[in-house]
C-alpha cells in the first residue's frame, strides 16, 4: 500500500468529522474544528505539488486500486477547502443545524476519493455515499426538509445506474441508443427537466448555507466527475438527440425556475426558483467537450456558491422586535442588499459574479440548436428579473408598514457580510477573475 498525500485527504477529514460529531452539541467548538481542519488541509495541499515540494507522492494504492491526485484535483481542492471553511464560519454566525460541520468534513473525503479513484464506477458509488452523508445536514432538524432530502438521495442513487453503464461502456457498444445512459446520468445529476424535483424542493426548504455546500461545492465535484465521464464517451455527446435533449431540458428547467419565482409569495420561493433557473443554465456546459466545458461550468458553480452565501446572509436570521430599524444605517441596508445581489447573481445579470459564465452558456445553447431554446432561456432570465423586482417592491412596501421588526446580527456576522460583499463586487466588476481562476485550475493560465 502506497502512502502518498491523497491518504491525508481521504483519512484526515473523516477523523476530524468524527471528533466534530462527538462535540456537535458545542456548535462553536465544532466550527473551530472544521475551520482548523480545512485550513490545515489547504496549507498541506499547497505544499503537495506533484513531483516536487514537501509531499511529492501523489498516489495512494488500496486493494489493488489506485487513487491519483491530478493537478486539476489538487487545484480544485485548493479552492474547495477554504470555501468549505467559509461555510463553517457561516455556521458560527448563525445556527444552520448541528450536522453541518461533521457532514461537511466527512463529505470532503468522499468527494476527493470520487475524483481520484479509478475506475470511474467506484467514483460513482462514492458520490452516492457523499449524497447520503450530507442528508443529515439537509434535514437540519426540520420536518419539511425530510422529503427534499429524500428526493436528493433517491435521485443520486438512481443516477448510479446510468453512470455505471456509461463507465462500463456497455451502452455505447451494445445498445443502439448509446446516448441514452449519458443523457439520463446528466439530467439526473444536474437536476435537469424532468428530474428537477430534487433541486427545486431543496432550494425551498433547506438553509441557503447548506445549499451552498450541496448545490455549490458538492456540485463542483459532481460536474467535474460528469464532464470527465462524458469525455470518455465522445460518441454520446456528439449524438444529435443528446444535444437536442440537453438544450430543451435546459430551457424547460429554466422556465420552470422562472415560473416558480413569479409565483413565489416569499423570498424562500424566489430563491428556490432562482436556484432551479441557474441549474437549468448550467446544463449546456455538458455539450462542450474537454477543458472548454470545465471553463463554462467551474465559474458558474463558484458564482452559485458565492450567491448562495450572500442569500444565506441576506435572508433574515434572528428577529428582534426590541430594536427598531433606523433607515440610513449601513447594517440595516446590508442584509436586503446582499439578498438582492445574491439573487441577481443567481440569475447571472451583468455586474454580478453569476455573469462570468452566463454568456458562454447562452452561446452554447445557440450553437446549432435552433433559436427556440435560446429564446426561451432569455425569456426565463427576463421573467426571473421581473419576479425579483416585483418581490422587492412588495417587501419594501411591507417593511414601510411594519418597520419595527428587523433582523439583528453580531459584529462577526457583519464582518462576514462585508467580506463576502467585497469579494462578490470585485468578481462582479471583473468577471475575468473567475474565468482566470478556472483556467488556472485546469492548468491553462
Amino acid at each position, binding site marked *: 500500500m502506497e502512502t502518498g498525500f491523497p491518504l491525508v485527504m481521504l483519512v484526515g477529514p473523516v477523523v476530524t468529522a468524527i471528533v466534530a460529531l462527538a462535540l456537535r452539541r458545542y456548535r462553536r467548538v465544532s466550527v473551530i474544528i472544521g475551520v482548523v481542519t480545512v485550513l490545515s488541509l489547504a496549507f498541506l495541499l499547497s505544499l503537495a505539488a506533484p513531483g516536487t515540494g514537501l509531499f511529492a507522492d501523489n498516489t495512494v494504492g488500496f486493494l489493488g486500486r489506485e487513487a491519483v491526485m491530478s493537478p486539476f484535483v489538487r487545484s480544485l481542492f485548493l479552492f474547495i477547502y477554504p470555501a468549505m471553511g467559509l461555510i463553517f464560519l457561516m455556521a458560527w454566525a448563525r445556527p444552520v443545524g448541528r450536522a453541518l460541520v461533521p457532514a461537511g468534513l466527512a463529505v470532503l473525503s468522499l468527494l476527493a476519493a470520487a475524483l481520484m479513484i479509478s475506475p470511474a464506477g467506484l467514483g460513482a458509488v462514492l458520490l452516492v455515499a457523499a449524497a447520503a452523508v450530507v442528508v443529515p445536514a439537509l434535514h437540519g432538524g426540520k420536518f419539511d426538509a425530510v422529503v427534499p432530502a*429524500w428526493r436528493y438521495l433517491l435521485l443520486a442513487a438512481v443516477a448510479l445506474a446510468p453512470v455505471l453503464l456509461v463507465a462500463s461502456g456497455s451502452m455505447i457498444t451494445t445498445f443502439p441508443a448509446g446516448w441514452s445512459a449519458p443523457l439520463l446520468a446528466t439530467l439526473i445529476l444536474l437536476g435537469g427537466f424532468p428530474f428537477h424535483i430534487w433541486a427545486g424542493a431543496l432550494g425551498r426548504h433547506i438553509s441557503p448555507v447548506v445549499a451552498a455546500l450541496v448545490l455549490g461545492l458538492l456540485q463542483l465535484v459532481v460536474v467535474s466527475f460528469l464532464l470527465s465521464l462524458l469525455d470518455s464517451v465522445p460518441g454520446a455527446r456528439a449524438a444529435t438527440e443528446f444535444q437536442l435533449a440537453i438544450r430543451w431540458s435546459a430551457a424547460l428547467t429554466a422556465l420552470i425556475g422562472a415560473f416558480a419565482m413569479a409565483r413565489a409569495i416569499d423570498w424562500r420561493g424566489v430563491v428556490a426558483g432562482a436556484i432551479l433557473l441557474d441549474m437549468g443554465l448550467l446544463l449546456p456546459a455538458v455539450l462542450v467537450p474537454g477543458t472548454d466545458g470545465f471553463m463554462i461550468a467551474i465559474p458558474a458553480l463558484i458564482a452559485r456558491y458565492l450567491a448562495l452565501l450572500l442569500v444565506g446572509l441576506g435572508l433574515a436570521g434572528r428577529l428582534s422586535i426590541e430594536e427598531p430599524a433606523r433607515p440610513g444605517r449601513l447594517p440595516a441596508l446590508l442584509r436586503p442588499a446582499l439578498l438582492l445581489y445574491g439573487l441577481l447573481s443567481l440569475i447571472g445579470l451583468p455586474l454580478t459574479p453569476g455573469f462570468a459564465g452566463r454568456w458562454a452558456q447562452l452561446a452554447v445553447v445557440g450553437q446549432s440548436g435552433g433559436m427556440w431554446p435560446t429564446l426561451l432561456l432569455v425569456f426565463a432570465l427576463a421573467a426571473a428579473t421581473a419576479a425579483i423586482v416585483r418581490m422587492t417592491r412588495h417587501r419594501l412596501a411591507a417593511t414601510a408598514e411594519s418597520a419595527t421588526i428587523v433582523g439583528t446580527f453580531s459584529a462577526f456576522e457583519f464582518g462576514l457580510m462585508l467580506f463576502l460583499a467585497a469579494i462578490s463586487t470585485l468578481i462582479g466588476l471583473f468577471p475575468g477573475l473567475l474565468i482566470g481562476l478556472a483556467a488556472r485550475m485546469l492548468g491553462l493560465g
Partner: protein
Amino acid sequence: MPTIFDILDRLAFLHGMPAVALLLAAAFIAIVAWDMRPVIVAVLAQYLLAGFLFVDVLDPRLAFVYALAGLFVTAILFITAWQTNWGRPPPGLTQQEATRLGLSRTRRLGRFTVTDRSLLRLVLAVVVVLVALWPARSPGLLQPVVPAELAYLEPAIVGLVGLGLVGLATSVDLLFGGIGLLVFLTGFSLFHGFLDQSLAMTVALVVAQFVVALTVAYLAQARYLPADVLD
C-alpha cells in the same frame, strides 16, 4: 458445518427459473404490501434469492457476501419499521396533518382500507411483472450483456428494476420508497454483475445498498420522531 458449496448443492432444485419466479414474487410483495411486517419478510426473501442468482454471475463467495449484506440491510429496515409503527401513520391525525404527511385519500375494499396511491402501485406492479415475464417467452432482450445460457436471469433483472422504479415513484412513505430503491439497486446489481465482476465493484455496490438503507432509516425516523430525539 456445511460450506457455501454444500448449501448451494442442497438448493440445486431452485436453480434457474424457479428461483427467478420466487424472486419476482418476493419483490412484488415487497412493493405492493402496505404493512411493513410482510414487506420485511419479502425483502429478506428477495435478498436471499438474489444472492442465490448471483452465484451464476459472480464468484459464489461474492454472491454469499451479497446475501449476507441483504441480511444486514433487512435488519436495519426491520428495526426502523418497528420504531416507526410498521409504516402506518400515527393514529388520530387531523386532515391538515394527513395532508402535510402527504397521505392520499383512502377507500374501503371489503375488509381492507386502501389508498388511491397503493391501488395505483398495485396496478403498475402487475404490469411490470407481466412485462418482466415477456423475456422468459422470448429471451435475448439483454444480449449480448446477458449470455444466452443465462437468459433466464433477464426476467429477474427487468422485474426487479421495474418493480423498484414503481415502488420509489409511487410511495410517499420513505420506508416504502426506500425499499423500492433497494429493489431497483438489486436488479441493477444483477445486470452490472455481467459487466464488471471485480471484487471492488461488487463490494462498492453492496456498500451503496448499506448507505441507502441507513439513510432511509434516518429519514424515516426523522419524519416520524421529534427532531430532538434524533439530535
